[in-house]
């Protein structure tokens, strides 16, 4: 136990922070995306260490299994495999640094303020998947349905955007110009 944190937590936190830094600083865009995946994995490990099994596995399933793949596909289909050119630091680095420091201070103050006065020996009651399911079906059923409708709308929108335009019966020049 170093600084009051367990070894496992320190290692996982170091991995997450290293991944996030690499995602921001690396030159190759696909390397950045893969480091972001490492960050997601580190977050999932943190959730698992807090005994939130569902959150941890859902993090892996959704973020690593879907979002990371989405990011790399987006990189692939838009930029190609070329190595990105960028300058090391932007010209307005002081402004960026001050905004980041202010955000970090705000978040840190909020987190520290929410910690309980004394650390309790007993953990919070375990939240099993069953209780999550029961809660989703009883007290949170309206948000669940709204999210489902939202997802359906997104799917239909994606299909419409990706669908090839139907050719009209008009002259070829017009449809050619329209396309």
């Amino acid at each position, binding site marked *: 136990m170093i600084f009051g944190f367990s070894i496992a937590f320190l290692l996982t936190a170091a991995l997450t922070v290293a991944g996030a830094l690499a995602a921001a600083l690396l030159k190759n865009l696909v390397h950045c995306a893969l480091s972001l995946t490492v960050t997601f994995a580190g977050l999932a490990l943190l959730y698992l260490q807090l005994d939130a099994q569902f959150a941890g596995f859902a993090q*892996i399933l959704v973020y690593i299994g879907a979002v990371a793949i989405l990011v790399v596909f987006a990189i692939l289909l838009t930029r190609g*495999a070329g190595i990105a050119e960028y300058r090391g630091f932007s010209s307005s680095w002081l402004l960026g640094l001050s905004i980041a420091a202010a955000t970090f201070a705000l978040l840190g103050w909020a987190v520290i303020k929410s910690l309980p006065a004394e650390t309790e020996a007993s953990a919070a009651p375990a939240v099993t998947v069953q209780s999550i399911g029961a809660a989703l079906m009883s007290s949170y059923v309206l948000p669940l349905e709204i999210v489902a409708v939202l997802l359906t709308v997104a799917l239909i929108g994606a299909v419409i955007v990706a669908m090839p335009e139907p050719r009209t019966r008009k002259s070829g020049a017009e449809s050619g110009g329209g396309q």
Partner: protein
Amino acid sequence: MSLQASFWNNLDQVFVLLQHWIAGYFPVGLQSAVGTILAVVGILATFPGIFALTTVLERKGLGRIQNRLGPNRVGPLGILQPVADGIKSLTKEDIVPLSADAAVHFLAPVVLVVAVFLGYAVLPVGRNMVLMNMDAGLLFFFAIGASTELSIFMAGWSSRNKYSLLGAMRAVAQMISYEVPLLLSSVVAVMITGSLSTVKIVEAQSGFTGIFPHWYVFTPWGFAGFVLFVIAALAETNRSPFDLPEGESELVAGYFTEYSGFKFALFFLGEYLGMFSIAGFAITLFLGGWGAPLSVLGFVPSWVWFFLKLLAAIAFFIWLRGTLPRLRQDQLMNFAWKFMLPMTLLNLLVAGAWRFLGDGWLRWVVCSAVLLAAYVLLGRVLMRHQNLGARSYRYAD
């Protein structure tokens, strides 16, 4: 009688007893860690051994299906062929293309093998023989399965080769498309059991009526779920007839074109191990896991049943590979989204109806009728524009 029963019981638990006996030599604080390490060693020894056996069985099985002998030079009947294959792949030169992304190129097979081995942690191989009895075990397995797609993308992109990239994109598209039916078809088993833990799902199927087991595959929704799960599993592991990403006649070798020697062997290993773990999950979810097929055969050790079922599943996969032609990419995607997804959603409804119709013959009739009607109708609707019949040839004059 009790001596005989205790003998069979000990045989059933022989590996657990072995694990406890070895862990007993260590101080109390380390015992659970040692026990876990022993179980991990067991997994690492068993499943690559099954992989070696499968490569021989596959080559010989496919050969016999195709009216030829398989390899029969190395060892009696060619059993030691994997040794020769292993030595060959270890001694081949490891070529990395000059313009390839060396770090990602190196990490791709590693990520694949690590992710696949992690999936074995929640597979109950026998009674009390699971590495980690997690409450959300099934979710863990699917989450890890999603990580394997990333390694395929890494392999394809880092090779800087158009064939690899094309193969990788096709493979990832295929795997993502079939994840949805895979998960949905496994949800029925979870629904009826009421738990995501693989151990509980197996235990829920360990009852018997008369001599017949309570396996989920013997119910209408379970049978449909099993068939859909197996099809989705074949597509997830890029196995024939869904092996377009690695089809040799199409894309050189797809996303592992640029891999040689040991890295290729690692990809091969990862792919086959993934096939075993997903077959293991099909067995766990629908075929009763380590349960005996007839109650009179309950004395045979549970791990024997599991591995027999696994062997049967592997034989079935090899049989399918020898029979079916490869599916084209658009046929593959159509199949996933237009056939499998509606069927899995309908299966969810049918499983719910099964639960709420209560015991008796009514629920059997209703569920079977609904599923069969949906299958036939969907098949007719999707095939109405395809004029598949005897081939007619048109010759040039």
